[in-house]
C-alpha cells in the first residue's frame, strides 16, 4: 500500500472532481459515484488506510477526508441535478402522446343551464327569482289573468285538469298574480318553471315544457321600459350586436302586447336560405306586454296608480336555437350521448 499521504488524498479527490465534471449523462455520473463514493470506491479505500496511522495523524487525516468528501458529495449532487434538468427527469421516458387517465365529469342539463343563464341576466338587472306551484287553481291560472270561462284557452282539451278547480299550470303567469297578492309594488321578479299543455309529442312540441315569466310593476312604468329592459337582456344573452324588434300581438293579460324577435345569429341576412330562421332574418323569442288593468284589479292594485310589464319565454326554444338542436325530445330523453355534449 502506498503512503496515504496528503498528496495522494489530493490526487484522489482531484480525480474525483474532474470525473464528476466530465460526466455527461446520469449513467456516466453513476459510474463515477460507484468508482469514488461507493462502498468499494477509492475514497472508501482511503478511509481504510486510516487504520494504519497513529491517533493524531488519524484524526487530522480523517478530518481532511471528511471535509473533502462533503465537498465532493455536494458537487456530485449539483451535477446530478444539472444533468436531470438537462435530460428530463426520467431518462427512460413515457410516450407523452398516450391518453390521460379518464376521470368522470358530470354535466348540468343543457336546458336547465340555459334557464340559469337567462335567469342570471335578469337577476343582474335587479329581478328577484321565485318559483311557484305547478298545480294551480283556476282563479290564478285563468280568471285573475283576464281569461274568462268562455275563452278557448280554458277548455278541458287544452289543459290538464285534475279536478274542476285545479289543473297543472298552463303557463308560469299565475305566479305573477300570487306575487302581487303577497306584496306591494315595486315588484321586479322572474319565475322559472315547468308548465303543461296537452299536445302531441313531436320534434317541436311536447306536453311538458319550461317557461320563464317576468314581471315589473311600479309607478310610471311604460312601454318604453319594457322595450328597453328586454332589448338590454337580449344583447346580454345573444351578443352586443343583436338587433331586436317588437311586433304587436295578443295576450289576454297584457295590453298593448307584443312578440319580440331577435336577429338570427346564424344567417347572413337575405343571403340565400337559412334553415334556422327560414330566411326572415328574425327569430321569435318571447311574448310580452303591459299588464292589463283587469289583472291589476284582480289583485287589488289600482291601475290608475300602478303600471307594469310582463314577459314570458321558453328557454327550450332558446337552447334549441343557440345549439342547433332540432328535436326537443332530446331534452326529455336524457340520453348520455346528448347530455355529454354540453
Amino acid at each position, binding site marked *: 500500500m502506498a503512503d496515504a499521504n496528503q498528496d495522494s488524498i489530493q490526487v484522489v479527490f482531484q480525480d474525483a472532481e474532474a470525473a464528476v465534471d466530465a460526466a455527461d449523462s446520469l449513467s456516466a455520473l453513476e459510474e463515477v459515484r460507484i468508482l469514488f463514493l461507493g462502498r468499494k470506491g477509492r475514497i472508501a479505500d482511503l478511509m481504510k488506510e486510516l487504520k494504519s496511522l497513529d491517533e493524531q495523524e488519524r484524526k487530522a487525516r480523517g478530518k481532511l477526508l471528511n471535509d473533502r468528501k462533503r465537498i465532493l458529495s455536494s458537487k456530485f449532487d449539483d451535477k446530478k441535478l444539472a444533468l436531470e434538468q438537462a435530460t428530463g427527469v426520467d431518462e427512460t421516458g413515457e410516450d407523452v402522446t398516450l391518453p390521460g387517465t379518464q376521470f*368522470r*365529469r*358530470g*354535466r*348540468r*342539463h343543457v*336546458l*336547465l343551464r340555459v334557464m340559469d343563464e337567462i335567469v342570471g341576466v335578469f337577476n343582474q*338587472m*335587479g*329581478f328577484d*327569482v321565485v318559483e311557484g*306551484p*305547478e*298545480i294551480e*287553481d283556476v282563479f290564478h291560472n285563468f280568471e285573475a289573468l283576464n281569461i274568462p270561462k*268562455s275563452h*278557448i284557452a280554458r277548455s*278541458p*282539451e287544452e289543459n*290538464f*285538469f*285534475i*279536478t274542476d278547480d*285545479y*289543473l*297543472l299550470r298552463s303557463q308560469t303567469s299565475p305566479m305573477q298574480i300570487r306575487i302581487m297578492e303577497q306584496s306591494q309594488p*315595486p315588484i*321586479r321578479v322572474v319565475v322559472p318553471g315547468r308548465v303543461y299543455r*296537452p299536445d302531441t*309529442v313531436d320534434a317541436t312540441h311536447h*306536453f*311538458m315544457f319550461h317557461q320563464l315569466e317576468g314581471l315589473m310593476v311600479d309607478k*310610471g312604468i*311604460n*312601454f*318604453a*321600459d319594457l*322595450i*328597453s329592459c328586454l*332589448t*338590454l337582456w337580449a344583447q346580454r344573452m345573444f351578443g352586443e350586436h343583436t338587433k331586436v*324588434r317588437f*311586433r*304587436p*300581438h*295578443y295576450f*289576454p293579460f297584457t*295590453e*298593448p*302586447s*307584443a312578440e319580440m324577435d331577435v336577429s338570427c345569429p346564424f344567417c347572413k341576412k337575405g343571403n340565400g336560405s337559412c334553415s334556422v330562421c327560414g330566411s326572415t332574418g328574425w327569430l321569435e323569442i318571447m311574448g310580452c306586454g303591459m299588464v292589463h*288593468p283587469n289583472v291589476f284589479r284582480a289583485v287589488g292594485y289600482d291601475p290608475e296608480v300602478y303600471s307594469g310589464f310582463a314577459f314570458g319565454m321558453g328557454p327550450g326554444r332558446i337552447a334549441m336555437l343557440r345549439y342547433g338542436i332540432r328535436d326537443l325530445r332530446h331534452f*326529455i*330523453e*336524457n*340520453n*348520455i*350521448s346528448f*347530455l355529454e355534449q354540453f
Partner: protein
Amino acid sequence: MKYSYQWLKEYVDFSWAPEELANRMTMAGLEVGTLDKVGDDVCLDAEVTSNRPDWNGHLSAAREISALTGNYIQKPEQTFARVSENILSSGSVTVEDAKLCPRYTAQLIRGVTIKESPAWLQQRLLTIGLRPINVVVDVTNYVMHEYNQPLHAFDYEKLNGSKIIVRRANKEETITAIDEKEYRLDPEMLVIADADRAVAIAGVMGGAATEISQNSTMVLMESAAFHPLNIRKTSKQLGLSSDSSYRFERGVDVQAVLEASNRAVDLIVSLAGGEVVGEAIDINTSKPEEKIITLSYRGLRRALSLDVGVSTIEQILSSLDLDIVDSHREGVSIKVPSFRPDLNLEVDLIEEVARIHGYDKIETKASFSVRVPRANPTADKMQIVHNVLTGAGFYECMSDSFLLNSMDQYQNMWNDMPALSVRNPVRQEQALLRKSLLPSLLLLCKNNENAGHRDARLYEVAHAYHAGDKEISKIQEPELLSFLGDMSFLEMKGVVSALLDALHISVTPVFEPVRHAIFTNAASMSLDGHCVGFLGETSKPAAKQAGLKSKPMLCELRIHDLFASVPDVLQYQDIFRFPPVLRDLAILVDDNVRWQDVQDLVKKTGGELLREVRFFDLYRDDKMGADKKSLAFSLVYQAPDRTLTTAEIDKLQNAIVSSLKKKLSAAIRD
C-alpha cells in the same frame, strides 16, 4: 287565414309588393308567415290572434291596410233590386232557441242558373286554397272570406214544407251532411230543419238532401249568428269542423249578418241570373252594445313614452272604422263598432294607436334603473349541490313529471296517499303525477342502458307531487334531489358525505335501516332528528319493472330539509399546529355490532384529545368464525397546545381498548 294579394287590392290602394305588404301587416300585428305564388296572384298566410276574429275576412285586413296607408277603403256595393212578391213570410222561418241563434236571416233568389263561376272568382278561391264547385257555393265561400260571415245556400224546393226551423236536434236524430257522412245528433246541438227533418248542422255543415245541385233554380240564402261555445261543442263532439264552424267558434259580427247576405245575393244575381223575391226575413234578438271608450292624450303619452300628434291619432282611429263621437283638447272618444268586441278599455285604444303608428317609433333607453335583487340563499346552496354532483360524475337529467302507472308501487317512501292524476293524460298508461323521482331515474337508466351507456350516473332536481289528504288544496310539491349510479352502498354514502360536507352541514347524519319497495338494503338518513332522505340498492322487482339489467344504487333527499341543516354562518376554527399521532386498531366483534356503536364508544372514551376515528377496513374470514367480523380503524390523537407524549396516548389507547373489550366484547387483533 289565407289572403289573396289581388283581392286585397280591390278594397284599398297600396303600392307595396307582396313581401312588403306582408312585412307591414306583420308589424301592425297581423303576422304573415308564408307567401306563395298562385298563378298571377300571391297567397299570404297569416296568423289570426284570438282577439281579432274579424281578421278572418278580407275586408278587415283591408281596413288594416287602409289605416297603414291612410287610403280610403272601398266596400262592395249592392245593386240588385227586389221583386215585390212575398214567397217567404214571417211563418217561413222560426227560431226556437234564440240563445243559441241570436240572429237568423233568409233571402230567396228565383230563377238561378247553376254553372261554373267566372274565372276571376275561381282564381280568388284557388289563391286561398279553396276548390271552386259551382257559382252559388263559390259565392257563399267568397263572401265568407270577405266579410268573415259564413253563409249557406239551400235548394229551396227541397225544403219540406218550405220552412226553416232553427231548433235543437231531437234525440237520436241523424243527418247526412254534404261530406256524404252520416252524423248522429243530440239535443245539445243546434240544427237547421225543415218541416220534417234536420237539413243542416247549424254553423257547421249543410245537409246533402238540400244541397245546391245542377238543377237547382231557387236558392234560399242563410246568413246567421250562432252561439260560439255551442258551435265549438257540437264541432268537437261530432269530430267535424269547417271554415264555417271555425268562424262561428271565434265570433262573427252579428250586425253585419244581413249586409253579407245582401252582398252574396247581389253577386249571385249578377253571375248566375235570377231575381231576389221579397224582403229578407230577419229574426234578430241580439242587442247591440253601445260602447264608448275615451282615449286621453296624456294617458297615451305616459303609457308609450311617445308623442303622437293629435291628427295622427284621429286618422288612425277613424281609418280603423272607430267612429269619433267626441274630441277635445284632452282626448278623443270613439264608439266601438260591432266587429271589435276586443275593444273595451282605454289601453285597447292605446294599443291600436301604437301598433298602427309603429312600435319601432318607441325609443329604447340605454340603461335600466338599478335595484339590488333579494338574496337567494337557496339558489346558492343549489349551486353547491350541482357542483358536487357534476364533480362526482353525475349527469343532470330533466324527466317527465308523469310516471308510468306500473311503477306506482315504487314511489311510496315519502307519502303513501294515492298519486294525483289528470283527467286527460296524453298516455293512459302514464297518468300519474310522480311522488318520487327515483322511478323516473330508473327508466332513464334503462334507456341509457339500451343505448349502450352502462354505469350511468344520473341526477335530477325537481318537484314531486304529494296529496296531503282528501283536500286537494293541501297538495304539497316538495323539491327532491335524486341520483343513482353503478356504485356500492358505501360509495353512494361517500357522495352523500361529500354533499353534506360541501354544504358545511356539521351535524352528524343518522342512518337507520329501512324498507321500501324500490330498495333492498336501504337506509334512511336523518339530520337534527328529521328524515332527510333514503339510500339503497334498487330491488330486483323494481329493476325488472323498469326493464333494467343492472341494479344501481339510489339516493333521494328532500332539498328543503337538507338545506335547513346548513349553518347560517361559517366560522373559522383554529388550525392545530402540533403534530397528530395515529394509532391503528383492529378489533374482532360479533356481526351484529354496528360501526356506529364502535365509533360512539371510542369517541366517548377517547375524549377531546381523540380528534378523529378513521374507519378503513371491514374484514370477514371463515377462520374468524361465521358470525364474527373484523373492524379496523385509525385513532388520530392531537392536542391544540402541545405535542402529546407517548404516555398520554398510551393511557387513552388502553382505556379505549378496555372499554371495547368490556362493552362490546371485542377482541383486539394484532
